[in-house]
């Protein structure tokens, strides 16, 4: 039987396209928001993808999807995307793909008389359809999340089997090979990811660990000091994400220094935990 959680945040029938940054819904962004490129890449990651981001732009401009003027939205999207420099390509592949689609549509619309042949689909209509389909799934996923869920809202009762000495009579001995095989299997497990290969040149977890270590051992350090210079541009971006993550977890804090730190590199951080 389907039950809904008696929660305050039920999804209502109207579409809710709230922007969330680090799980916190943000009702409105300032009108002329300037987002520095590095931060922008991180900001993009708060969306579930380029369609989610497009929906946000549509919502922000208060546009009816059916009446949607594709051009202004496209230009806004492209303007945001152009903020990404080459160092962030790996963070934004899907966004760039969408950008190319939008450019194609834009070109189409700018052509003086675009004669569409019967079997060719109107790219604008197609995009609107995709956006609508995505919005539908997004709302559905929120409704799914509102259902009473096992291991979040209700819990299985766990009990132990009767005493081991009672059950033990036929308890077999296990071969230690079982253990090592399971670890090997774990490594060999089929990767379900078949389409693209994404190599983490600088693993985020490694940066988080290293920055935590440095700050907890040596006290306050500047962002520049925390960098591993051998990791290059990508290292800077990943380190920045790591710092944001640690700030979010309230493990570190920004030190107020007298000198105004207008550059990221002078940002001084300290260990809190």
């Amino acid at each position, binding site marked *: 039987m*389907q039950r809904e959680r008696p929660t305050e945040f039920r999804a209502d029938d109207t*579409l809710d396209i709230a922007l969330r940054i680090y799980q916190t819904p943000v009702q409105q962004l300032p009108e002329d928001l300037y987002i520095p490129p590095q931060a922008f890449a991180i900001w993009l990651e708060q969306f579930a993808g380029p369609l989610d981001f497009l929906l946000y732009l549509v919502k922000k401009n208060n546009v009816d999807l059916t009446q949607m003027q594709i051009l202004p939205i496209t230009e806004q999207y492209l303007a945001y995307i152009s903020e990404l420099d080459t160092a962030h390509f790996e963070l934004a592949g899907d966004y760039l793909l969408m950008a190319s689609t939008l450019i194609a549509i834009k070109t189409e619309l700018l052509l003086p008389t675009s004669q569409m042949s019967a079997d060719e689909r109107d790219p604008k209509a197609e995009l609107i359809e995709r956006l609508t389909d995505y919005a*539908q799934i997004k709302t*559905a996923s929120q409704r*799914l999340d509102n259902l009473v*869920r096992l291991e979040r*809202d209700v819990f299985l009762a766990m*009990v132990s089997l009767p005493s081991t000495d009672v059950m033990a009579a036929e308890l077999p001995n296990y071969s230690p090979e079982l253990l090592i095989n399971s670890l090997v299997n774990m490594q060999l497990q089929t990767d379900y990811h078949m*389409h693209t290969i*994404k190599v983490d040149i600088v693993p985020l977890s490694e940066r988080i660990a290293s920055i935590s270590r440095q700050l907890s051992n040596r006290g306050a350090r500047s962002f520049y000091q925390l960098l591993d210079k051998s990791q290059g541009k990508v290292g800077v971006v990943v380190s920045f994400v790591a710092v944001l993550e640690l700030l979010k977890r309230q493990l570190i804090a920004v030190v107020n220094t007298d000198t105004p730190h207008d550059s990221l590199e002078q940002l001084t951080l300290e260990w809190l935990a």
Partner: protein
Amino acid sequence: MANVGNTEEYRLSIEKISKHIEVLLHASESPLTANMLKKQLLLSNQELELALEALKIRLTESVLSLHETASGYRLQIADHYSPLIQRIFPQRQERLSQALLETLSVIAYKQPVTRSDIEYIRGVTLSSNILRQLFDKGWIVEKGYKETLGRPALLHTTTQFLDAFGLSHLNELPPLPELSKIRATS
């Protein structure tokens, strides 16, 4: 007199069966179906029904409750104790990311789907970690292939998925919002 004796005996035997059912539900790693219980404990329909009734009555006094899910009966901690558990064992409270929920929704509502169907609808490359998590939870399975180039595997949700979300059938999923409404209100 003999009659009263028999009735009492019958009541006792039902009580005993209901205890056996309780033990099996506790010992089992997954929910147990009515058929499984009847077969294993050699019960008639009526006995099973009466025993389950007796179990439910016994549980009203306890901290547990009997639930019937898509894949059978299971014992869970009574709902009103959830806040206590959430407070003391926060690690048991599982949050699902938006990306995972969206992927799961595409599979649940549009099944069977391939990976690229999901990628097309969501507009993003599907991360291996999300599918891995869904497989690991037993919420989705691969079943059959789409007869296109590369014969990609088709993904379906499982009864474990239904169990986890308290549904007894896919048709109990919350309705998909109508496209016309989305168009008008967005």
